[in-house]
């Protein structure tokens, strides 16, 4: 969003700098937070969706403990409505890092009658993830889970702490959060309670992209422009998949699109784009006039849908 595109094009992206720039400072802060999680909690994990933010958190965890392995499992809350590319990417990354993968399955929660599937055209498994997530936390006795949520994403998330306390029911109490002073994180809790920790709280979408480029981090191809069958719904291009109910009045187009966020395939809209390299993506992000979650139907349900979901235990 800063400056204009011409200015950005002139930037030599390979150039490394000796002094402490904003990316290095954000990286140092995130690594510090991840190490605090390891030191203060007994069983922690990284919530991994296959999206760029959780990929960056995983990369930072690798940096935090090198040359040792990442001391946390990756935890995927699987809606069953995935982009196939995301799952392939996840499995390859787990293999390469040599870490454990724990999958909490929304489909299983539905089968067990723990939750009820939404019906109708705009049905989504977004809310259902909360139950599966909390069940997974309980089953594996996690006392801390890290996530890639950022404060610049959404207004309720702007109020989050790095160490976010959750009660016995996994609920967030935004009006009664612990003050977070300097770099001292209070991870004390009673039995049954847990923490959600957000190491990249202070990063913006632009920071994430710049960092991916600077560190040469692999990401799913979905983030780069590609041709795909889509339909136009609620002003966004929804990918055609076996999980999407295409109405008779809706037409399937083949468009060059990319995704700014990756969520459940049924609710994540793409944007028309020619950005098929990271450099081009950065230029596009810089020029964007819509927030990255602008194409997420889950956020559009009401003015406070993120706050409501977070209070119930969402991340």
């Amino acid at each position: 969003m800063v400056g204009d595109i011409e200015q950005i094009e002139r930037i030599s992206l390979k150039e490394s700098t000796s002094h402490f720039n904003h990316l290095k400072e954000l990286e140092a802060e995130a690594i510090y937070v991840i190490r605090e999680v390891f030191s203060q909690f007994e069983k922690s994990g990284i919530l991994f969706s296959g999206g760029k933010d959780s990929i960056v958190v995983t990369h930072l965890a690798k940096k935090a403990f090198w040359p040792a392995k990442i001391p946390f499992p990756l935890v995927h809350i699987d809606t069953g409505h995935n982009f196939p590319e995301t799952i392939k990417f996840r499995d390859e990354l787990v293999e390469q890092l040599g870490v454990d993968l724990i999958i909490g399955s929304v489909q299983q929660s539905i089968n067990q009658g723990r939750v009820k599937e939404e019906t109708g055209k705009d049905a989504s498994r977004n809310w259902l993830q909360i139950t599966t997530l909390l069940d997974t936390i309980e089953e594996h006795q996690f006392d801390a889970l890290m996530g890639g949520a950022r404060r610049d994403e959404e207004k309720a998330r702007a109020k989050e702490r790095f160490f976010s306390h959750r009660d016995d029911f996994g609920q967030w109490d935004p009006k009664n959060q612990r003050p977070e002073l300097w770099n001292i994180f209070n991870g004390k809790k009673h039995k049954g309670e847990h923490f959600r920790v957000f190491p990249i709280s202070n990063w913006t979408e632009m920071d994430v992209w710049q960092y991916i480029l600077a560190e040469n981090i692999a990401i799913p191809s979905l983030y780069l422009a590609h041709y795909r069958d889509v339909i136009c719904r609620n002003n966004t291009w929804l990918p055609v998949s076996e999980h999407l109910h295409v109405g008779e009045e809706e037409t399937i187009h083949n468009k060059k699109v990319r995704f700014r966020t990756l969520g459940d395939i049924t609710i994540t809209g793409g944007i028309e784009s020619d950005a098929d390299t990271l450099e081009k993506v950065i230029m596009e992000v810089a020029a964007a006039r819509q927030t990255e979650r602008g194409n997420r139907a889950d956020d559009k349900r009401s003015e406070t849908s993120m706050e409501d979901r977070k209070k119930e235990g969402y991340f």
Partner: protein
Amino acid sequence: MENSYLDMELLRFTTAGSVDDGKSTLIGRLLYDSKSIFEDQLEHVANSSKRRGLDHTDLALLTDGLKDEREQGITIDVAYRYFATPKRKFIIADTPGHIQYTRNMVTGASTANVALILIDARKGLVEQTFRHSYIASLLQIPHLVVCINKMDLVNYDEEIFRSIQLEYARFASKLNVKGISFIPISALHGDNVVNPSENMPWYEEKTLLSTLEQIDVSKTTSAAVRFPVQTVIRPKNDTYHDYRGYAGRVAGGQLAVGDSVVVLPSGETSTVKQIHLMDEELSVATTGMSVVVSLADDIDVSRGDMITGITGSPKLQQDIEATLCWFSRKGPQPRSRYTLMHSNNEVKAMVKNLNFKYDVNSLTREGVDTVSVNDIINVTLRTNKPLITDKYAENRTTGALILVDENTNETVAAGMIC
């Protein structure tokens, strides 16, 4: 400017003012005029404004994120906002002005390089102004930017601006800050926020944004080497069978390969063998960097220990004098025990003596009988094990601590070591 995108400095600032000073409006204005607001965010805010029956788009709604805040038109918790110009990336901690939320102001101030103090031009200095300025000074925020807001409601009168400036400067002579700037603004109309004001030709200095872009934020930590150890890294794999590294974030000075160091509290000495940031081998790690350090000698080092230089040693002490911002409704009880967290270390602590209380309006010391929420007090703490400390005035990391209630797990106080 060539590499501005990848190579910007980060400036963290906090905002303070009393209720209705227009703080959220100012931040909204700063974001809006610096073109940091996305169309869909603006559309949301415009719709919300309409639903509330307002005839203009209320920019304050950009920062008030929670349902209650939007309904009551107030800010109840710290909200973080981000924007960048080609010169800098900014992190704003927007903190509420109500007296009962002072702890949030302290939270926002603890990591800030700059504090914005808002004053309503019609009201001048009020109790909150003194309190916030004092907290900013107490937390050693080096720069204050005093925005005299709502100039539109006093006909952009220079006299009013000058008299508030004079009154504040007189009060601020008692504060411990490096620099203060004064800017007459109208957050509602945008005067002197990002764009120079046409209504106040008598003000010829920098706008708020250019002030923020130009304030010197170079680290002013002391040169004494401080490396609190967060965790020990022992990979125990074939390639790094005997590797033992100490992970942490440099809290003062810089560590270089070959430097002689003292590990506290044991007092054992060694030299820095390697410094790593993953597979990148560094010759020097400066303040703020998260790295892994390995030493030439095989000595016992664990979390909470500190690697220091051979000169400028910190203190090892169990009786600690500190200034506390008290956050809990329940004051410190005689002999009640707390967990004290400091530089990746945890010890048990008691409040041994309540020395005095600060009157935040006059900055004078007074006697202390009872302590209530939001009080700022000076105490002597007694810990069960020695802490490795610096004075907060010398190091904002190794001089800072928090107290945690052992029963509720709440953070009950923020402390600055004297």
